[in-house]
């Protein structure tokens, strides 16, 4: 209760403070940055510049999970880590959807697949040095993958390499327990500049895994396990001078970084500072007054600051409504009656009033754009379509009733909708759905559960879903990498259904979909792969298993103090942190 009161009062204080700042806020200065209009950074580089020097000031209202490149899962962290960690590949430094293209970074070129896509070979650039002056070798990359995926100490990051790489006989226990030189046998380093990955299944998107900071080299001799986050050895243009958890991080130039080995980075600021655990309302005020350059979290202005940013023409020009690569949606359980009948699922598709849901989620800004597809627009493979249209997206009870009649439930039925109790916006959206479905005669009982258990015990446990007749479940999903496979596979491939921790909540089991995924993992032509993801999206929507609600977005603010600003589609719609400079 106290927390709520403090939060409410903070918001009131912040609104007033924001208003007061407006009196002394910055004004148009006639520079190229000020000339940029609202949303300019969505499609173009704002304040393009090669000017070097200065200190780039980041702040964040929380802390990292860990800045250790091998032990982190946040998109902002992966985006920012590129200042001190060079992964095998990364995303193209370009605005718009060009940003989704994977390009080589530490590697000389993208991976070379062989053995039908089960073996991937990379050549490491020569002359890349750690901040201690030693040269980066393929063994450092192998070690980085081993420590990040196979040790019990580093648990914060994803484990895709563990999932896809061939394991040692008996199971590899990671380099902290297995001290052998050979380590994981499925990663070979035939020479200092070649690394070969042997997979247990063909995987055409392996280059995407290469973008994860887990492939950034770590020298075995300098690895201090869970303490490495405070003693990171840099392979990028900046070295980490200090990281004090909960307090700050400071970076300065890595004197051993050689621009000739790095065609992607400009390395403009002399230093970078990050203030942690700052007051979010103060962060927003500082951004708008030019006292801060970037909100590291990249989640956009908080509610209190949004009216000020949008209510003033000069300030509004500094904003970008950016789409993140996540989707808020509702799943319909295909294994729970009467939703085992597709027509009953389609009745729900027509009945949902998406405008009310959007309002419940916080409106177009905080809640996002109304969605009609499973794939968000910023993920490769997205195609725009709407199989269940209704006037103004407000739902069509008449069509819903037609579908109900077709599925043998002309008088409607009662079902259960699960949501996460500690997510008030999700609860509000669930209530909006409840009201929308009631108009079509479908009575919904909302049951809420703690988010910590949501996937392990409730909505993500198929046995619970069936025994409790859970027909509908609220869900939000973001891709670990911005491709159709990265987004869709875990939520609609029948083989991703798990007894607990399941994320295919609808238990979608469509052979054509599974076949498309299989085909895509062996298809090296990107355009053809993307077309397959579009087909998967359509197949799932035709089946009616998922009700897309909103594509999430955020209101970003770019002060006039920084250069080379554009929205990164690859990193969930925050600004791209690779080449930001001080103007």
């Amino acid at each position, binding site marked *: 209760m106290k927390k709520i009161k403090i939060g409410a009062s903070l918001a009131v204080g912040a609104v007033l403070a924001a208003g007061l700042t407006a009196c002394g806020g910055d004004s148009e200065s006639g520079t190229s940055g000020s000339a940029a209009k609202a949303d300019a950074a969505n499609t173009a580089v704002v304040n393009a510049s090669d000017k070097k020097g200065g200190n780039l000031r980041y702040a964040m209202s929380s802390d990292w999970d860990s800045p250790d490149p091998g032990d982190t899962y946040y998109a902002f962290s992966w985006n920012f880590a590129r200042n001190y960690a060079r992964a095998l590949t990364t995303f193209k430094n370009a605005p718009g959807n060009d940003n989704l293209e994977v390009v080589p970074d530490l590697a000389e070129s993208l991976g070379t697949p062989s053995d039908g896509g089960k073996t991937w070979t990379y050549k490491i650039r020569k002359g890349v040095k750690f901040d201690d002056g030693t040269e980066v070798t393929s063994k450092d990359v192998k070690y980085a993958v081993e420590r990040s995926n196979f040790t019990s100490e580093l*648990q914060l990051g994803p484990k895709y390499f563990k999932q896809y790489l061939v394991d040692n006989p008996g199971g590899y226990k990671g380099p902290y327990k297995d001290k052998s030189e050979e380590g994981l046998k499925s990663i070979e380093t035939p020479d200092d500049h070649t690394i070969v990955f042997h997979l247990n299944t063909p995987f055409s998107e392996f280059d995407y895994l290469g973008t994860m900071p887990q492939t950034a080299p770590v020298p075995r001799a300098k690895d201090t*396990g869970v303490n490495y986050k405070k003693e990171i050895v840099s392979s990028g243009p900046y070295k980490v001078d200090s990281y004090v958890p909960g307090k700050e991080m400071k970076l300065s130039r890595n004197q051993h970084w050689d621009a000739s080995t790095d065609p992607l980075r400009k390395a403009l600021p002399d230093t970078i500072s990050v203030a942690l655990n700052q007051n979010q309302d103060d962060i927003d005020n500082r951004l708008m007054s030019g006292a801060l350059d970037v909100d590291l979290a990249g989640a956009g202005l908080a509610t209190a600051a949004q009216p000020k940013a949008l209510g003033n023409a000069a300030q509004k020009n500094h904003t970008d409504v950016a789409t993140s690569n996540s989707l808020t949606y509702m799943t319909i359980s295909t294994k729970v009656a009467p939703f085992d009948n597709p027509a009953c699922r389609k009745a729900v598709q027509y009945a949902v009033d998406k405008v009310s849901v959007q309002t419940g989620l916080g409106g177009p800004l905080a809640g996002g754009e109304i969605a009609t597809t499973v794939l968000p627009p910023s993920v490769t493979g997205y195609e725009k379509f709407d199989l269940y249209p209704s006037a103004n997206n407000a739902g069509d009870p008449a069509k819903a009733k037609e579908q109900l009649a077709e599925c043998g439930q002309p008088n409607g039925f009662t079902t259960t909708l699960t949501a996460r109790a500690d997510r008030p916006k999700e609860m509000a959206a669930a209530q909006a759905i409840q009201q929308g479905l009631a108009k079509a005669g479908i009575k919904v009982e909302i049951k809420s559960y703690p988010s910590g258990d949501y996937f392990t015990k409730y909505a993500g446990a198929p046995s619970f879903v069936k025994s409790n007749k859970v027909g509908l479940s609220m869900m939000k999903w973001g891709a670990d990498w911005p491709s159709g496979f990265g987004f869709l596979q875990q939520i609609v491939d029948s083989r991703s259904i798990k007894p607990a921790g399941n994320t295919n909540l609808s238990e979608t089991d469509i052979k054509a979909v599974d076949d498309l995924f299989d085909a895509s993992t062996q298809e090296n032509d990107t355009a053809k792969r993307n077309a397959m993801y579009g087909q998967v999206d359509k197949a799932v929507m035709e089946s009616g298993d998922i009700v897309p609600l909103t594509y999430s977005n955020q209101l970003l603010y770019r002060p006039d103090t920084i250069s080379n600003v554009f929205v990164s589609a690859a990193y969930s719609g925050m600004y791209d942190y690779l080449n930001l400079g001080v103007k």
Partner: protein
Amino acid sequence: MFAFIVRRLFGAVAMLMIVSMVTFGIFFLLPKLAGQTTDQLAASYAGKAPTQEAITDIKERLGLDDPIAVQYGRFVKGIVAGQDFSNGPSVMHCDAPCLGYSFRNSEPVLPTLLDRAPVTLSLAAGAAVIWLVVGVGIGIISALRRGSLFDRLAMMTALAGVSLPIYFTGLVSLAVFAYGLKLWPNGVAYTSFLDNPVDWAYNLILPWVTLAFLYAALYARLTRAGMLETLNEDYIRTARAKGLPERTVITKHALRASLTPILTVFGLDLGLLLGGAVLTEKTFGFAGLGALSIDSIESGDLPMVMGVVLLATVFIVLASLIVDILYAVVDPRVRLN
């Protein structure tokens, strides 16, 4: 006096043990009573959608399934004899008195507390000086000029100071003075006194004034009320009847008697603040003990919470002890034995 101090210090140790047990109990038992499992706790130390294998690994490494007595025993043993913690490739020793190890931050608790304490100390000490001088001063003048325009204005301001929360006055002062008038164009950020005393003071002025505004208001009202009550006492009338100068009557007789309750409150206030000026630190983004305590509670970092609570207890116990000793100095009627 010596026996009194020793007795109080023994009492403090007993208090610390009780506080540590209660804190430990709250953190372990309450979540369990609310239905939280060690699996969920372990999952908070893992990334998105962790596997059961990962959760088991974490539980084993952190000893989450050990009985509460075993875990508390481990904590006490660490204080007396130190403790070893694995960081993966090697084992790290936390020297006694080891207040535990934060698995969130991957560092022992005590060095973190010592790193954060100067921030809170700087904040509390500077603000205390301001609110004592301003608050007590205004209180005295208001009492002496009861009913005057100054008195009314001062009490109205004091009422505002008491009523407005720090997260409001803090944000407004930042908006006006830092970002509006550009007196602190880059905002405020704590700088160590040892690194740059001028920057230290420059960055602390706003937090000091914001924090002192609240307390000065309280102390002004407290002093005024105390002074007014004392000034009506018979011995004040006697002192005046004896022909003592008004200044002597006020400073040596009236003020001294009024100081005792102010001293009591001041000791407790300062002790509490040293344990963490939570709202001020969070509002201004200062990494002090208060911010550490809130962040640790939010992230479920029990060892760090234990450390902050114990340190705050030490401050409060010490502050009470000093206040008790000062009683004897301020009021000759008080004898510590």
